[in-house]
């Protein structure tokens, strides 16, 4: 518990609330310095061996400042390597990654085909900050694998996205021949690995959403208290107060679920998927209200409202959309309650 507070305090000091989306490269360095790349690395592998609650706390803080450093994909990539039972140079990779080299898990589906000769062509989507990646952890039809970004038949193409706090690349494969030494799992192992990585990704994204939503709410409350119309602070208008109260209520309840899931090692995969769905829904709701309650200023790039909204909209699509996740949660609950 104390450890968690320390993590949070340190994060808030390193990334102060008044500086949204600080420069990526410096943030990434700071992230490495803080030891956050090693938080979830087991102690046996030279890491800190902290649990989900710790990483959730960090992702929450990074969400709060709309961090541009790709800590979530980095953590997931590292975890894939940790989990791997087939990677040849596992120890070497772990050392490199915890020292700051970057091998992200991609956060959007891979649309690839495997030719008869085993080469792979197509696009692996959602590679955050591909420009600084030495390799990408990709889920291919043949299993999870590390794909070095400088390998033959591999190209990274940046895709312009609405969210200015992050950068996304496609990993474009053209007859890429996967290196057997870099396989992280075979086909059978892929499902098990997916069951590990999926909930981690969802938990991290939910934390990002709720950190962001909390910051968005605070900014909105502050603005309403400051801005005057019709000779009074607009915070005095009850209709606006009630809307802010609903923002607060939804954030706080969803946050309670976040911590409850983060602390529960038994939480089922779809329980965490449902949390991610709910958290993204709340984040969108909060940022929509934020824009409306800010009035005209919220529609200008000069103000920071839109950064929250655009991040919320992107989070809705990462690792499964709201529709997709809710449908699966519903299906699963239905089956369970048969």
């Amino acid at each position: 518990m104390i450890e968690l507070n320390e993590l949070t305090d340190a994060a808030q000091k390193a990334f102060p609330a008044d500086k949204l989306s600080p420069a990526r490269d410096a943030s990434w360095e700071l992230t490495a310095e803080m030891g956050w790349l090693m938080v979830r690395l087991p102690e046996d592998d030279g890491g800190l061996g902290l649990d989900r609650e710790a990483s959730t706390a960090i992702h929450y803080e990074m969400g709060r400042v709309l961090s541009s450093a790709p800590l979530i994909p980095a953590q997931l990539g590292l975890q894939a390597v940790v989990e791997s039972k087939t990677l040849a140079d596992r120890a070497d990779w772990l050392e490199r990654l915890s020292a700051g080299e970057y091998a992200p898990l991609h956060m959007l589906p891979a649309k690839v085909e495997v030719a008869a000769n085993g080469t792979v062509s197509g696009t692996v989507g959602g590679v955050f900050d591909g420009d600084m990646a030495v390799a990408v952890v990709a889920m291919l039809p043949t299993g999870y694998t590390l794909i070095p970004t400088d390998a033959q038949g591999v190209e990274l193409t940046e895709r312009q996205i609405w969210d200015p706090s992050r950068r996304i690349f496609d990993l474009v494969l053209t007859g890429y021949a996967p290196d057997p030494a870099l396989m992280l799992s075979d086909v059978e192992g892929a499902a098990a690995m997916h069951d590990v990585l999926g909930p981690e990704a969802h938990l991290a994204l939910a934390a990002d959403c709720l950190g962001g939503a909390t910051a968005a709410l605070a900014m909105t409350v502050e603005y309403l208290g400051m801005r005057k119309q019709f000779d009074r602070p607009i915070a005095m208008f009850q209709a606006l107060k009630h809307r802010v109260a609903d923002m607060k209520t939804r954030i706080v309840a969803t946050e309670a679920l976040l911590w409850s899931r983060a602390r529960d090692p038994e939480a089922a995969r779809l329980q965490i998927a449902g949390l991610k769905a709910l958290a993204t829904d709340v984040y969108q709701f909060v940022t929509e209200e934020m824009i409306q309650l800010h009035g005209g200023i919220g529609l200008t790039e000069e103000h920071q409202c839109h950064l929250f909204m655009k991040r919320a909209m992107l989070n809705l699509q990462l690792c499964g959309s709201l529709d997709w996740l809710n449908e699966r949660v519903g299906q699963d609950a239905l089956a369970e309650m048969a």
Partner: protein
Amino acid sequence: MTDNADLEALRSEVRGFLDAEKPAGWRDASRTQEDFVQTQRGWFAKLVKAGYAIPHWPAEFPGGGRSLAEQKVIYEEIAKADCPRLLLSFVSTYHAFATLHECASEEQKAKYMPRILEGETWCQGFSEPGAGSDLAALKCKAVREVRDGQEVYVVNGQKVWSTMAQFADMCLLLVRTSSEGVKQAGITYLLMDMKTPGVSVSPIHQIQGDEEFAEIFLDNVVIPVEQRVGEEGKGWAVAQATLASERGLTLMELGYRMRGALSRVAALIREHGREQDRGVLRDFGALVSEVDAVCAIADQFLDNRIKGIERIGDASIVKNSYSRALRAYAKLGVRLGGMDEQYVKPITFGDLNTGNWMADFMNSYAWTIAGGSEEVQRNIIAERMLEMPREPKHWTL
């Protein structure tokens, strides 16, 4: 605080009790108000005997002296086992108890506490027709007189929304003894025997067919001064003790019950062949997660109370989260049930997630209106948690 091993031991003890003593078919035995009262009294007596009815009372009472963490375990298990809620004895074991325990004289305590354990039913005479969420605006008038050499209050007025007053033996009564100064200042707190001449009770016919509440009419009701709790004119402070006596446990319990009752929605989806309807699956999935969040926030609220770090407004957030989810739950049921739900089915008295969807739907409004409406909770959250300005006290148009 109690350590985890102790809590788990208690948990399995409670489970053992519930396995053996869970009242079978209590819903069918609650289809009329009278049956409901019967069922409730029997269940309360069983819990008193087992030592689970008043875990929050002091240790001198059998079954008392439990930590909040222990209370939570007991409530959780009762909810998960889908046993009846202790509705009829709620006012006596929580509201009356807290009032007596914190504010009453030793004589009053000695007289009433044991009677509560024996099953005496209490009701609360706080709300009035004109006051609503503005409780302190109450008008029920008490005049101090001497009658037959005894100092008494003579009370006239009307109370409303009194839970189960029609079955109550005693009433926690707020009256106005003065209209000077701020409205909170002239309020006095009395303990009234419901059999006193001049007291009449009339149940409120609720729109879903339940009669959970009643009106109390007071016509020259004579109450001895000894029945006063606290000083004259200081009743408002006593009322705060009454009102603060419980919230967290109930909402946690209700959250778990709603979580369990999600299986009713699942059954409905199957019954109406909507298993392949992706829209319905999504709506159900979203509801499942929302209900999970309600359980989590209610849990967290209790944990914070246990740790002593509760803040103003926390309870409002729990209440509004719960009532929002309850509404969504009931509305989904009404929608999926279609025309079937427009035909009247027997209700279960005093129950919330009954699967009689129209009744549940209408009943869900009790949660956004009673006990401080959703709107009042929003005010509290905005003004007292987020420190936004309060509504102006004085104004001109």
